[in-house]
């Protein structure tokens, strides 16, 4: 199969989205969406084999998009190991999530619409992954944003869901603004937006100009990183991600584990040469490290099963950024992204299954004893949890080790931060598992196991979560361009110690506790309240608006005061003259006359707003006339 078929990967889900948008029957829509996704997966796998064999970069240019003079923007796609892996991962995880959704959403009256949004999302994500053009990438990026808005707010009759959708859309938009500025800068500096173009692409010939006294590459990469921060939920724009858990659970899995949040990390990896050239990598690493640490701490204090996973996602995304920011290539971060996509999707889908089995209960304090009631789900979930903790020889272990090694080599402080994060990760995962699976059930209704359509994807994902790292890790790293590195004993030891130690600590703290009644020793109020980030924004950004409004009001008051003063002065003068000069003259000249003239002027101005069509048309014609006269006689 030639690389031209690459375009089918995003186009098939797009077609499915178009087909399903008018459907009423949820089952048929699900069949269409799943069929399209399976085809995409098949093509993506063929392309992966192709890329594996070829190794380098292959580009496909489908059509011209915008041609302005010498500059040309194309619909062009890109096949290299990075994009092929991402495409295969997105289609594979996506397909499993689609299948899961067909069971999870089957009772929802708007099921067909749900699959339409899901397909649109997948199309956008695949376009993003395969784009060989920053503008095309940005367009897909925005499609993903819109689709995620629709999906998060899918149950828009819940006010929280509607608000969460808006929040996700607006907060990521802040980052996207930076992304767009970065794109425009890149276009002005490099004259092209193609990433690879036979030696002339943006990543092959990195712009060397200087803008505002800063190197172009540095500035562009900084702005692109803004987009990545927004999309991947890094500090300080992470606040939307946990709120987005209001959406249906498969959405959480699709958007917030496997694909959308990975888009930011992917963007950094994609445009990695710019970051290297601009020397922005340390910033990336530190933003990632701090995010990882703070989010892991917050996860300790949460009680909603999905929110814990959400914060854990933010934390793991931070680790990916660390992996990107400390290594010489994008391989380490991307490796963690791949393994994370599988085990986090597994965790989310498992959480969905648990929530389903517990009659839509999300609070872990009212769970417990799930292990006996839902054995398959529990087993799969524990596989995912072990991978998240980086238990030795699971996939998470290999990828997180790679990140730790790379951090160890680059910046020792960062390494300590990451190790601490790993310890906390193990702690909160253990806490969650103890709460959910062990002991007696504390909810009202007895939990029950989910049907096979929900558990089958879990089992498949569990296999990947355990095996992917060990089986494919080294070749994946090699293909993505990682340099072979030493495995310092200190890192290995730390990694084992924090994973096992954290789990042990968690067990000691939580296992014997009477979970339903006593308070949680680690759920400090600062953690439970997410370090007051939302409050902080309300207090800063919100206050800023209030302050600005106040300022405007004060200015208005001031102006009114000045006017009042003027009026008083004029009146005083008028009265003064009225005694000495002829009253009528003064009145005519200053007070009444002036007022009347203003009144007349007002009437004239009102006259323009006749509300009559021909009146407005005449003004338009007059404008056209003015332009014509200007062009003909006054130009030059």
């Amino acid at each position, binding site marked *: 199969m030639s690389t031209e078929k690459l375009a089918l990967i995003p186009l098939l889900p797009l077609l499915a989205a178009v087909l399903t948008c008018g459907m009423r029957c949820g089952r048929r829509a699900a069949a269409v969406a799943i069929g399209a996704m399976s085809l995409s997966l098949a093509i993506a796998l063929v392309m992966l084999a192709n890329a594996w064999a070829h190794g380098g970069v292959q580009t496909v240019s489908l059509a011209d998009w915008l041609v302005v003079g010498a500059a040309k923007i194309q619909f062009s796609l890109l096949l290299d190991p990075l994009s092929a892996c991402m495409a295969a991962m997105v289609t594979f995880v996506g397909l499993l999530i689609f299948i899961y959704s067909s069971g999870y959403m089957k009772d929802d009256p708007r099921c067909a619409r749900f699959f339409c949004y899901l397909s649109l999302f997948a199309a956008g994500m695949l376009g993003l992954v395969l784009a060989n053009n920053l503008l095309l990438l940005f367009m897909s990026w925005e499609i993903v944003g819109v689709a995620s808005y629709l999906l998060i707010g899918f149950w828009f009759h819940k006010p929280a869901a509607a608000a969460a959708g808006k929040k996700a859309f607006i907060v990521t938009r802040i980052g996207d603004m930076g992304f767009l500025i970065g794109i425009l800068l890149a276009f002005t500096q490099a004259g092209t937006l193609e990433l690879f173009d036979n030696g002339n692409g943006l990543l092959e010939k990195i712009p060397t100009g200087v803008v505002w006294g800063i190197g172009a590459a540095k500035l562009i990469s900084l702005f692109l990183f803004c987009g990545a921060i927004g999309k991947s939920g890094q500090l300080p724009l992470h606040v939307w991600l946990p709120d987005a858990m209001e959406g249906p659970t498969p959405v959480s899995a699709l958007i917030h584990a496997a694909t959308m949040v990975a888009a930011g990390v992917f963007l950094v990896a994609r445009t990695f040469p710019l970051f290297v050239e601009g020397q922005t990598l340390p910033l990336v690493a530190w933003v990632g490290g701090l995010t990882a640490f703070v989010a892991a701490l917050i996860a300790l204090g949460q009680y909603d099963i999905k929110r814990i996973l959400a914060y854990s996602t933010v934390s793991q995304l931070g680790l990916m950024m660390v992996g990107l920011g400390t290594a010489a290539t994008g391989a380490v971060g991307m490796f963690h992204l791949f393994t994370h996509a599988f085990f986090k999707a597994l965790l989310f889908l498992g959480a969905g299954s648990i929530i389903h089995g517990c009659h839509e209960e999300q609070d872990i304090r009212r769970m417990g004893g799930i292990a006996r009631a839902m054995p398959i789900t529990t087993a799969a979930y524990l596989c995912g949890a072990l991978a998240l903790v980086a238990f030795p020889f699971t996939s998470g272990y290999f990828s997180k080790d790679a990140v730790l090694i790379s951090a160890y080599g680059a910046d020792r402080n960062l390494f300590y931060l990451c190790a601490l994060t790993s310890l906390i990760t193990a702690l909160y995962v253990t806490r969650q598992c103890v709460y959910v699976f062990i002991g007696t059930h504390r909810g009202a209704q007895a939990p029950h196991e989910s049907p096979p359509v929900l558990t089958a994807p879990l089992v498949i994902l569990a296999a990947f979560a355990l095996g992917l790292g060990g089986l494919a890790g080294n070749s994946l790293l090699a293909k993505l361009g990682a340099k072979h590195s030493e495995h310092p004993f200190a890192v290995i030891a730390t990694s084992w110690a924090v994973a096992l130690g954290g789990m042990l600590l968690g067990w000691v703290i939580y296992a014997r506790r009477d979970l339903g009644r006593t308070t949680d020793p680690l759920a400090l109020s600062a953690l439970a309240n997410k370090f007051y980030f939302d409050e902080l924004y309300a207090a800063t950004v919100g206050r800023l608006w209030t302050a600005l409004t106040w300022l405007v009001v004060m200015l208005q008051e001031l102006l009114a005061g000045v006017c009042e003063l003027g009026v008083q002065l004029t009146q005083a003068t008028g009265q003064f003259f009225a005694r000495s000069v002829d009253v009528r003259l003064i009145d005519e000249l200053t007070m009444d006359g002036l007022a009347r003239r203003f009144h007349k002027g007002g009437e004239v101005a009102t006259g323009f707003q*006749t509300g*009559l069509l021909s009146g407005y048309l005449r003004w338009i014609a007059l404008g056209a006339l003015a332009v014509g006269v200007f062009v003909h006689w006054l130009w030059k």
Partner: protein
Amino acid sequence: MSNLTLEHYLILSAVLLGIGLLGVFTRRNVIVVLFSIEILFNAANLNFIAFWRFGDQPEALMGPIFALFAIAVAAAEVAVGLALVIAVYRHFKTVDLEKLDTLKEE
């Protein structure tokens, strides 16, 4: 008298444009305003065709293509416009533009 030149057609088209504008500016009946808009469209089409006929590349057929598309769009515009006129008439019981001044804030 010399042969017909581009200017002949352009001047004719400008005159027709003027007549169309006159109708748009001075008449108050929506239907007549639509007539006038049709006249404006036709004046523009005459320009397209004339420029094509006297231009450098008559074999490229840009003029007729453009005119055809303009005619089609104008047809769509008339259909919707007249439907709007009927809807407006049903609502306000008039097609007099001077009485349709709800754009103005009272």
